């Protein structure tokens, strides 16, 4: 089953239903399907085995995803925020390909061997052309739907492979066909080169919920688009949510049409989600945990879970505000120790998942086990009720004197300190303890005394979880999806330690 069938089905059953809009332009499902066929005729005629997409969000993203499926050429969206040389390397790796490129981005990737270029304006004119829309398309049965380059924070970007059966299995088993109300609209602000940007298109179309594209995220533009389009659903990454709330506060407005707000893609600071729930009490909050390699979401903390946790005086229930919820019923999830044994409930280990949506594969190598289990490289644990707590990348877990310490837990405690605007906790090598805990702080105003901060942690967590090394900075390094780059901070501190040692 190809992802394009998802659109064919909804267009067949509800051709007049609103499908995609960006700014003033609007397509219903029937015209979206016709446009996808028009685009497919163009992509079919062009040389190249893949479809590279380099551009901002907009209706052309949805159309290119389905058109690529129709012609059996994998869709390869690229990150336009990369530096020119890094971007050119990814285009080179994608050859031979046809590349749909925003007109103003073309000079950045021009004249690369094996690439046929189509500017976005030409692409848009082509898919609107009725002659193209009527062209017969050959029947294809391609396997690979999407190639997504990982952000490459730990090395060269890897191309994650998502096959049609992974994506369609995720959509068909988790989303009701045309299950959305006619007036529902989903604001998509995650970029097209992120797995959430792909899954938003597929689940949005299959559920019949209109996709409203925000070309590029700013909190002001997000709020404007949400109000103007009476947006009912949206997905944000944690760094976006706090900034959106700031705009709502500054304007003194709410979002009366918003029904559900999901978040994921990184750790949500507890104070931010609590503020959001208090500020938008009518909204259903959903925390979704997933990876590119798992075709998006594998665990969900639903609206009722949020409300119960928020209202509970039981610390174990209250704590679930920081959990990613329960695994989807359509897949299996286990926590294992380094030897591969399943650990008892409540103990930390590596999160493993298995299921039809789990790809676990890169173009360069397959990382999924023969029996279908995929090691996520994320550390986490399950509570007695089966709620999953994610502690961060396995490489980020601090092992101090044999004790596993989650940097996120310490960060959550310190984030509530009034003098701290932002912070990062990570491990640095230590001869005596294996690792010691380092903390880099962005202060709100005058930097507080580190002894006060240490006392703050000690009063709320064990003394073994109190950072040993403190440092103040003006800002922290994040990648463009809002993921904190702990490794960069760690390398800085290690380099400084080496300098001190050799001085």
């Amino acid at each position, binding site marked *: 089953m190809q992802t394009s069938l998802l659109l064919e089905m909804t267009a067949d059953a509800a051709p007049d239903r609103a499908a995609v809009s960006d700014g003033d332009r609007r397509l219903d499902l029937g015209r979206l399907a016709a446009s996808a066929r028009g685009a497919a005729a163009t992509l079919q005629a062009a040389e190249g085995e893949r479809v590279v997409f380099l551009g901002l969000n907009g209706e052309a993203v949805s159309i290119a995803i389905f058109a690529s499926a129709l012609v059996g050429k994998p869709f390869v969206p690229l990150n336009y925020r990369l530096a020119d040389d890094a971007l050119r390397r990814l285009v080179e790796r994608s050859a031979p390909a046809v590349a749909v490129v925003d007109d103003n981005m073309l000079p950045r990737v021009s004249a690369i061997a094996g690439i046929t270029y189509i500017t976005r304006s030409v692409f848009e004119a082509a898919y609107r052309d009725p002659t193209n829309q009527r062209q017969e398309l050959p029947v294809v049965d391609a396997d690979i739907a999407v190639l997504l380059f990982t952000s490459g924070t730990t090395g060269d970007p890897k191309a994650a492979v998502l096959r049609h059966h992974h994506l369609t299995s995720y959509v068909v088993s988790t989303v009701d066909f045309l299950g959305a109300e006619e007036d529902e609209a989903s604001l998509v602000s995650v970029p097209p080169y992120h797995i959430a940007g792909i899954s938003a298109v597929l689940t949005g179309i299959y559920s019949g919920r209109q996709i409203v594209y925000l070309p590029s995220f700013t909190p002001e533009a997000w709020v404007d688009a949400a109000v103007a389009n009476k947006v009912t659903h949206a997905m944000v990454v944690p760094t976006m949510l706090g900034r959106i709330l700031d705009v709502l506060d500054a304007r003194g407005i709410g979002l009366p049409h918003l029904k559900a707000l999901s978040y994921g893609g990184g750790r949500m600071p507890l104070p931010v989600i609590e503020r959001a729930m208090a500020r938008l009490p009518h909204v259903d909050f*959903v925390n979704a945990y997933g990876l590119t390699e798992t075709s998006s979401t594998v665990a969900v903390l*639903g609206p009722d879970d949020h409300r119960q946790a928020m209202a509970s005086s039981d610390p174990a229930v209250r704590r679930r505000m920081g959990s990613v919820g329960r695994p989807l019923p359509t897949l299996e999830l286990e926590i294992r120790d380094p030897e591969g044994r399943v650990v008892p409930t409540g103990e930390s280990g590596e999160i493993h998942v298995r299921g039809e949506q789990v790809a676990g594969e890169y173009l360069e190598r397959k990382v999924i086990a023969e029996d279908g289990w995929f090691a996520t490289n994320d550390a986490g644990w399950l509570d007695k009720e089966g709620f999953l707590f994610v502690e961060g990348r396995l490489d980020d877990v601090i092992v101090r004197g044999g004790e596993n310490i989650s940097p996120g837990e310490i960060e959550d405690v310190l984030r509530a300190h009034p003098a701290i605007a932002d912070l990062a906790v990570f491990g640095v090598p230590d001869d005596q303890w294996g690792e010691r805990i380092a903390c880099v702080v962005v202060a709100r105003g005058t930097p507080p005394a580190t002894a006060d901060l240490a006392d703050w942690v000690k009063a709320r967590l064990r003394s073994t979880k109190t950072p040993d090394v403190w440092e103040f900075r003006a800002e922290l390094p994040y990648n463009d999806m809002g993921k904190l780059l702990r490794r960069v901070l760690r390398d800085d501190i290690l380099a400084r330690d080496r300098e001190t040692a050799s001085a």
Partner: protein
Amino acid sequence: MEFKPGSRWRSAVGSAEFVVVRPPRTAGVLRSGGQNLLVIDAPVADGATLDPALADALAIGKRYTDSESGIELLVSKAGVGTLTFDDRTLVLKEAKQLPSSD
């Protein structure tokens, strides 16, 4: 008949089309309206008629399962013709919708 996940099929007696979501654990005969399903691009068979006793409507987007074999089908085009696997009637799968996370 091998019902691979993702493979597409059509009714021999009407407009209905199907996708295999989950394959059966055992081999068996899959029918709609009393007639064997055809592969999606097969020509329409002459003379295949709908069994009036097996004329349930099949709505697009609905999933049907047989618990004994584990087969699960998605209706990708609407039509008429009760689904059976080795003469057991497939039952409508009540979708357990998850909160929207995308």
